[in-house]
């Protein structure tokens, strides 16, 4: 039946799986059992980094890439001319165990194309994972892909076997999904996620999260996984640049996924054209935009920001020149400067150049002594950026830092690696990137004026 060599089929299926960028092996803490192999660490372990700079912690594979669906953005769509292959559950389990013992990986990331039906593909994956858990006594990390439309009972079985499950939203609006992935629909996707979120909270005895309540705190400890249900929770992925949706649509969606469905992570993947098709733009991958979305995602999860603070109807896309945090600060100068020795922790987190660690260190150590600029530098604050927004004992780092009229220009100079107090300020131009809806703005002071509250 399988006449092609294992290596060739393996390479085909890795090639087909790699655009799913989820890479974490964290969120689950499991000790090995007698007679077993493997454990998981709640902080996750990166085993290597690929040539594109991304972390490799799991063996990422498709069970099969023979797909019945026709999603325009996907390399495995039925009409795309690529080699098709499958691996048996035994083959996947063998490779996983052998890689694991050599410490190449923390575990397995198993996905599948929709071969025949969602139920059929899901059952193949269940067989593979059951082999690993039961016959090989594997206690390492398993991340499994949920196929929307699969029977709820099958998803439930997966939940008891895997550490994490994900359903990829891929496209941020029902409209783009209908256009580009006609066999999928938003209801079944979100419905599947909602169902899993419900199961998790029933099984693990957490209080149901109501809409609008606090986002996951990074300090919250992950549940220990003995026979628990999906201990590392759910994640999802969105493709950036395959549709006309703005950053605002994307980040607002992420925020509600974190709040309402207890999503652990949302991943953003810049659209890379794969093969010939006519529905999608052929442009360079919007890498800077993807980067801005990750920065914004971090602001939501760790810095207490809300989506509506970062983007609005008038300003629906992130600035290419400045990161979202700095842009927000410039748009809210009435809140600055902050006195580092008096400001609340939530305020400190809003200062560009002060990260979570620095904010916590400032907060902890100022009980013992008033902080000065030398202390801040020692603590790890990036003074280059923070100096405009904070004072120590009533004074700025440099007396010119308090003049907010030229602040946007100065920050841009800093980003370009220049001296913020150079007389002739030449503003750098950044090249346009990404899909047509994401236009570059020619930098000049007027573009900031509507946002600066005088």
């Amino acid at each position: 039946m399988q006449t092609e060599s294992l290596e060739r089929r393996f390479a085909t299926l890795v090639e087909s799986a790699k655009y799913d960028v989820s890479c974490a092996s964290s969120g689950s803490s499991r000790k090995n059992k007698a007679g077993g192999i493997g454990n998981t660490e709640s902080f996750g372990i990166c085993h290597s980094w690929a040539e594109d700079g991304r972390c490799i912690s799991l063996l990422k594979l498709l069970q099969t890439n023979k797909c019945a669906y026709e999603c325009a953005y996907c390399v495995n769509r039925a009409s795309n001319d690529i080699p098709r292959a499958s691996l048996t559950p035994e083959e996947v389990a063998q490779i996983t165990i052998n890689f694991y013992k050599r410490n190449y990986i923390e575990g397995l990331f198993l996905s599948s194309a929709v071969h025949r039906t969602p139920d059929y593909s899901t059952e193949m994956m269940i067989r593979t994972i059951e082999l690993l858990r039961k016959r090989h006594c594997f206690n390492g990390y398993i991340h499994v892909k949920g196929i929307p439309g699969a029977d709820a009972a099958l998803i439930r079985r997966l939940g008891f076997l895997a550490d994490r499950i994900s359903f990829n939203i891929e496209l941020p609006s029902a409209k783009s999904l209908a256009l580009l992935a006609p066999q999928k629909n938003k209801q079944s996707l979100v419905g599947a996620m909602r169902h899993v979120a419900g199961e998790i909270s029933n099984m693990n005895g957490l209080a149901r999260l109501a809409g609008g309540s606090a986002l996951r705190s990074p300090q919250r400890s992950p549940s220990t996984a003995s026979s628990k249900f999906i201990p590392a929770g759910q994640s999802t992925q969105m493709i950036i640049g395959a549709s006309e949706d703005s950053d605002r649509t994307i980040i607002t969606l992420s925020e509600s996924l974190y709040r309402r469905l207890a999503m652990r992570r949302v991943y953003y993947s810049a659209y890379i054209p794969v093969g010939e098709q006519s529905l999608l733009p052929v442009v360079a991958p919007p890498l800077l935009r993807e980067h801005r979305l990750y920065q914004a995602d971090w602001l939501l999860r760790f810095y207490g920001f809300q989506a509506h603070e970062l983007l609005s109807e008038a300003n629906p896309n992130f600035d290419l020149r400045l990161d979202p945090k700095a842009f927000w600060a410039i748009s809210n100068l009435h809140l600055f400067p902050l006195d580092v020795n008096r400001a609340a922790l939530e305020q400190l987190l809003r200062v560009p150049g002060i990260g979570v660690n620095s904010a916590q260190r400032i907060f902890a150590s100022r009980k013992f002594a008033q902080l000065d600029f030398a202390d801040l530098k020692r603590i790890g604050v990036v003074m280059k950026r923070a100096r405009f927004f904070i004072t120590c004992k009533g004074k700025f780092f440099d007396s010119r830092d308090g003049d907010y009229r030229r602040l946007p220009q100065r920050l841009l100079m800093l980003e370009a690696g220049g001296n913020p107090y150079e007389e002739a300020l030449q503003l750098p131009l950044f090249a346009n990137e990404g899909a047509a809806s994401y236009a570059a703005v020619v930098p000049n002071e007027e573009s900031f004026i509507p946002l600066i509250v005088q």
Partner: protein
Amino acid sequence: MTNKQDHIYLYDGSWEGLLSAFYHACKAKERSPEISCEQNGGLFNEYLRIHADDQIAREVSGAIVQRISRNSLYRAGLLYLSECDGFGGVMYRYLLLGFSMGKQVDFYQSHEAVRAAHALSRKVVCEAHRFMGLTRFANTENNVYYAAIEPQHNIVPVIAPHFYDRMGGEPWIIHDLKRGIAALSTESGYEILPFTIEYQPGMADDENFFQGLWRRYYKTVSIAPKKNLRLRNRYIPPRYFSHLTELNSNSQEDFNQQ
């Protein structure tokens, strides 16, 4: 940083020796001594040779746990494993502050002694965490999983418990080539022993196959338009390449053939 007046306490390189030297420096009410196992200070520094004393070492570690915290003792241990120049002085100033402040000392992050101790111990923890990922085992002909590493700090004692739990019943060896020691799995745990032999084991039958498969995986999984070797090298400094199956010299030949 030693000046003409600072004393240098010499110990034998062991943990008990370090604590004994610390004890004596404390008793002499030193402000900023250096504690080291090498004689490389200035000509006019006064050297005091201290003998390791198990009883004193036990008392000192007990005092640290009691008067500061268990965490601080662990941190002192990490500083010892860092093997960096000057770690003795960093440890001394940190613990001295700890004795006067108690367990609050770790919150006083703006104090120079605390920052120095935290930054150095963090280096050790970071490298240990990295090696939980970068250590590569090879299945040798007698079915022992053997890994060779060359870390900057002495992290084998930190990573051994992790691998003991992870590997289950499989026999394994982690060999620190730089220091001539290895963690070896035993019936009920592991031991850390001197390991200076030139160990060149033969490979198990399927070892080449899985190494080849892993190299194939490594090359395939990268997304070509996003290639960024500078970023990759920031995460894995090239000094670690030689013991990584996917990046050592063998991997180059492998791909020239394909």
